[in-house]
Every structure is written in structure tokens, then in C-alpha cells.
């Protein structure tokens, strides 16, 4: 775990020296499982700042909600840093207006997995490098950290922030970049029928609350295709056609823009899996165009690049 005091003192310094107007991080929530994203504006506010592996959201989603010119600092993990870069590439924020406090990330603990293990009424969660101690109504549970990690974090290959202005804590070892690929290949080894059955089963629980959209830093369109009325792109209700179209197109619009942070999946109130869709797209972008989202703040995603190098690929 990084040194929280070090994060706080850096945050206080930035705010008191007027280098930034607002600091984006988490504060303790009403319940131990749900720390809340918070906006700190004065050095005193920063006393409330917390950092733990229970911080579920990708804070970059708030960047496009703040005035474009505002000077912002953020506590970023690996994926959040990459999302910030992707937003900079898309000119949603100028890198000059950002100050990133980077924290090497040990992975997010999925609160659903915690509840599944320890039962209702979780009173406290204490984590160490290897293990997590959960206290709930039914007693104490000592669980291996791996077992509680969110699925997308288990496959993460870039836990370290790539372009932080200051890094708090020692960089972690880069993890195995094959894990994500293997997950995609495993899914694709299923038959067409099985793959569709899986997709249908996940999509049919959707209630179209759009929490996945709002939680994603890259979903910042003022008007989403599902909200568009003339023409209407897809059925509006919770019908199979509508739900499936939502899942397909939401994911597809993330091609070359998704950082596999998993925030969409964690936000979903219906426990719907979504990263098996975006992982496929990320995998393809890497295979076909050697592109990974957000590794720097300059490279445009493949769909925003046209090159005649593609010429020889036309006749397939």
C-alpha cells in the first residue's frame, strides 16, 4: 500500500501553492465497501482523502465534467493514468492543466466478491499485500487478495502510472501481458453458438440504467446514440434488440479508447460482464495495429488514423 500521508502532503502542497484548483481522489464513504469519489478544493479538505483498493471508480470520468480550462490534480492508478492520456489525445483536456499523482496499483478489490465471501453487513476491510481481512455480521474472514481482485485487475498488465508527475511508492513489476490475450482466446475457443449464448445471457439482464456509460471516462458524448431520437438507432426499451445493441455499440465505440479499467463492469447494478467485449477490441488493436490505449498522450487510436499502409490489407 502506498504511503497515504505522502499522497496527502503532496495534495496539500498543490492546493496551498495554488498549482491546481481541485484535487480528485476518494474519501471514506458511508459504508466501508464504498469509498466515494471526492473533489478537494482546500488543503484542509484533503484530511478526508483515503486511498485503498476498494476505490472502485475510474476517476478520469470526472475530468470531462469539470470546466475544460480548470487546473486539476488527480490521484491516478495505472488504468486511470492511461485514461487521462486517452482523453488528452482526444483533446478533452490539456496535459498542461493536469498534475497527476501516480500510485502503482495492486488491483481493485471487487466489493461483490467480498460480499460473496463474507456475507452481508461488512463492518471493516483491512488489506495487506497478500491478504485481506474482512469483518462482517457473520464473523471474520481472512481471504487471499487474489481471490477478491476484480476480473479486469487480474488481467492488468500495466499497474504503474505511465506519465505521472510524481510517483508515490515503488513501481510494481509489470505483469504478464499475455493474461488479457489468453482470456480473449479462451472465449473465442467456444463455438459460435456458445459465444452467442453467453452474450445473450449477459445482455438480457440489462436494465439500461447506463451506469456503465457514466462510469467510463471515454463515454463523454453530450448525446449518446441511444438517446438519439431522429433517427432512432436502436430500440429504446429493455427488449433483446435494444439491450444487445446497447452492449455491442457501447463496447465498439471504445475501440482503441478503452484502457481495460473495468469501471463499467464494477458500476453495473446487474453484475453484467462487459470486459470480455472490450478486451476483444483491445486485443485486436494490439494485434493489428500494435496499439495500446493511453501509453502516451500523443498517439491517436487506430480508427482516428488513416494510412495507405492499409492498402495491402484490402484484398483479404
Amino acid at each position: 500500500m502506498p504511503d497515504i500521508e505522502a499522497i496527502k502532503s503532496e495534495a496539500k502542497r498543490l492546493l496551498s501553492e495554488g498549482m491546481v484548483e481541485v484535487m480528485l481522489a476518494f474519501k471514506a464513504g458511508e459504508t466501508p465497501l464504498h469509498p466515494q469519489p471526492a473533489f478537494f478544493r482546500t488543503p484542509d479538505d484533503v484530511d478526508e482523502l483515503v486511498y485503498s483498493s476498494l476505490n472502485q471508480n475510474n476517476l478520469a470520468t470526472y475530468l470531462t465534467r469539470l470546466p475544460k480550462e480548470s487546473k486539476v490534480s488527480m490521484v491516478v492508478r495505472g488504468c486511470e493514468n492511461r485514461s487521462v492520456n486517452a482523453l488528452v489525445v482526444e483533446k478533452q483536456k490539456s496535459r498542461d492543466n493536469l498534475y497527476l499523482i501516480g500510485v502503482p496499483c495492486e488491483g481493485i478489490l471487487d466489493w461483490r466478491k467480498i460480499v460473496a465471501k463474507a456475507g452481508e453487513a461488512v463492518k471493516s476491510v483491512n488489506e495487506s499485500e497478500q491478504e485481506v481481512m474482512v469483518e462482517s455480521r457473520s464473523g471474520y474472514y481472512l481471504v487471499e487478495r487474489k481471490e477478491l481482485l476484480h476480473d479486469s485487475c487480474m488481467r492488468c498488465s500495466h499497474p504503474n502510472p505511465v506519465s505521472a508527475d510524481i510517483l508515490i511508492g515503488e513501481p510494481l513489476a509489470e505483469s504478464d501481458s499475455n493474461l488479457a490475450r489468453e482470456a480473449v482466446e479462451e472465449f473465442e475457443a467456444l463455438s459460435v453458438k456458445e459465444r452467442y449464448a453467453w452474450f445473450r445471457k449477459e445482455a438480457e439482464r440489462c436494465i439500461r440504467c447506463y451506469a456503465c456509460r457514466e462510469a467510463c471516462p471515454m463515454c463523454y458524448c453530450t448525446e449518446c446514440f441511444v438517446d438519439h431520437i431522429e433517427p432512432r438507432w436502436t430500440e429504446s426499451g429493455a427488449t433483446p434488440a435494444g439491450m444487445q445493441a446497447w452492449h455491442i455499440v457501447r463496447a465498439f465505440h471504445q475501440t482503441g479508447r478503452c484502457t481495460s479499467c473495468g469501471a463499467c463492469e464494477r458500476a453495473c447494478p446487474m453484475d453484467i460482464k462487459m470486459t470480455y467485449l472490450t478486451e476483444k477490441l483491445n486485443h485486436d488493436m494490439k494485434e493489428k495495429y500494435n496499439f495500446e490505449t493511453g501509453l502516451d498522450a500523443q498517439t491517436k487510436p487506430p480508427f482516428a488514423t488513416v494510412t495507405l499502409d492499409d492498402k495491402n490489407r484490402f484484398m483479404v
Partner: protein
Amino acid sequence: MNFILEKQALPDLLQTWRANFDVYLPQNLERFTHFMPLAAEGVTVINEPHNTRIPPKALFLPMTETLVKFTRFGGYENAKHEIEPRIVFALRPCDAQAVQLLDTSFLQVKYSDPFWLERREKTITVALGCHEPCDNGFCTTVGYGPFNKADLDAMLTDLGDFYLVETFSEAAETCFNGFANASETICVQALEVQQRAHDQMPVAFETENLKEKLEQNFSSNYWDKVSLSCLGCGVCTFLCPTCFCFDIVDETQRRERVRNWDSCMFRTYSLEASGHNPRPSRVERTRQRLSHKYVYWLDQVNQIGCTGCGRCVRYCPVGLDIRSMLRQAQSLPFEVSHAS
């Protein structure tokens, strides 16, 4: 009438009901429970200590429902839905209360919603009281409770090996026909369990003068503070058992006019054709959501429009908590209104 229902006898009873009713009860769906029709193979009755993820309002107001079918040339006919008599089993008191609250909106003297009405008339509700109160629910705070009996046909109290069944309607009595009557002692025992559960629930916030405070601070920056990290998704409203807004849409490709759940937390909810939006940001939308529950419902039917079910607390993706929002509201300045 009070009956005794052995837990062992329950699966058979549910199957017996299936002869004449569609029986809906919470069943496992992924890692949560969901109201689904009982199949012939039977099912283990789930004793999860809290309500289903999707509230049973969905059984009366489906997420998507066809109202009218039309043709290309101006013809149309009202949609018909085949609704069989049904028993909704093991819904929780908060959710049953919510259905009653929604009646005030859907069943009015002058106009009532035909689909809602038909579903209500054909449904027998058998609730399961919460002898072990759930985490994050706060039904007692808002004046209801884990054994709140409003608008139920029957209520079950878990007493170990058996349930005490209290019936409040003739229809429900028929459902439990043939079961042994409960003795005085058992009823007293049940009452104790009910009282204990009630007392276990902490007071989440004070409701006194809450309405005045929220109302009089309509323009306060309190709203900016509590809505800051809100994402503007539909989780809290779609999962709320008392939220009932819908949007009517023409699905021209299949020529149906449908209504879909809608949420005041969406930008498009209040967006006008001109492009003007009277609730331009999450601040106004959060204010609308809270005020609807804690001010406008009181104005309209003199009941708080939140039953304390705890869903918005549990599933908000950013951990926003209505209890803490309302606790913060307690320190807002206000004047006692002198309306007689």
C-alpha cells in the same frame, strides 16, 4: 387469521398454488435474487436477509410495456396483456409498502392505469417479514418497518422451523386453507420477534422538519455538495421501488407505442424539444430525486415516498448514500411553517 406453516411444507404449498396461480418468488440470478415465476421443478426458497435487486414494482410496471399497436395507415388498437392470477411470494415489507405508494399515483379517482389496475387486482401478495433486518435498509426511520403490514394479503414471520402466517384478506386465507391455526403463545412469540427486529434497526436520520428544510433550501449550495460525485446514471431510480417515471416512445420499426422506465437522473428526462433543459445539471436532478421522495410525496399524499429499502445505498456505483445526504440536510436552516 393466523396459521402455522412448517418450513418443510413450503415447497409443496408453492407447487399447489401453481395449479391456479402464477407464483413469483425471489430466485437466484447470478449473485443476486430476482422475482421469477416458479417452475415445476421447484426451488429452494431463499432466505437472503434483504430484498431482491430489482424491486417487485417491475411485476406491476414492467421495464418495457406495449401500450398500443399501430399500422402504417393510421389504424391502431390497444395492446392486450394476458395477465394470469398470481401470487407474489416473499416480497419484503418495504417493497409491499412501495406498491401501495404507487397505487396513489396509478389508481386515482378520475383516471387509473388499466394495466396497473389489472395486475394489482389479480395479485395476492404474501410478504416475508425481516426477522434479521438487512444491512443499509432504514425502513423504521421513514416510519415503516421490517414487519410493516400495509397493503399485504399475508405476512410470514420466521420462527425457526416454521412460519407464523398472518392473513389480512379472504383471498390469502383461502391460500392457506387447511393449515393449523396458530396458538396465542405463538402469536405472542412472533410479536416479540417482530418487535426485536424493529428495535434493531438504527435511526438513520431524523425526519422531523426534514420536509421544511429541503423545501426552504431549494437554492442552497447544499445541493451542489451532495450531488458532486453523482454520475447521473439510472441505478438509484431504476432500482427504487417507488420510482415510477416512464417515457412513452413509438417504436416505428415494429409499430408499437411502448412505455419504458425513465429516470429523472438522466439528462434527456427533462430536455425540451427547443434544446432548453430546466434541470441542466446533476445538481438539479439530485434535488429532484430527493425532494420528490421527501417533499412532494408528502405534499401530495402525506406519506414519505421512500420506504427505506436501501437499494440506492447498496448499488450506487460511487457510494452516494441517501442517508448521509439527508443527515447533512438536518443542519440546514429553516423556519417552522405556520400552516394550520
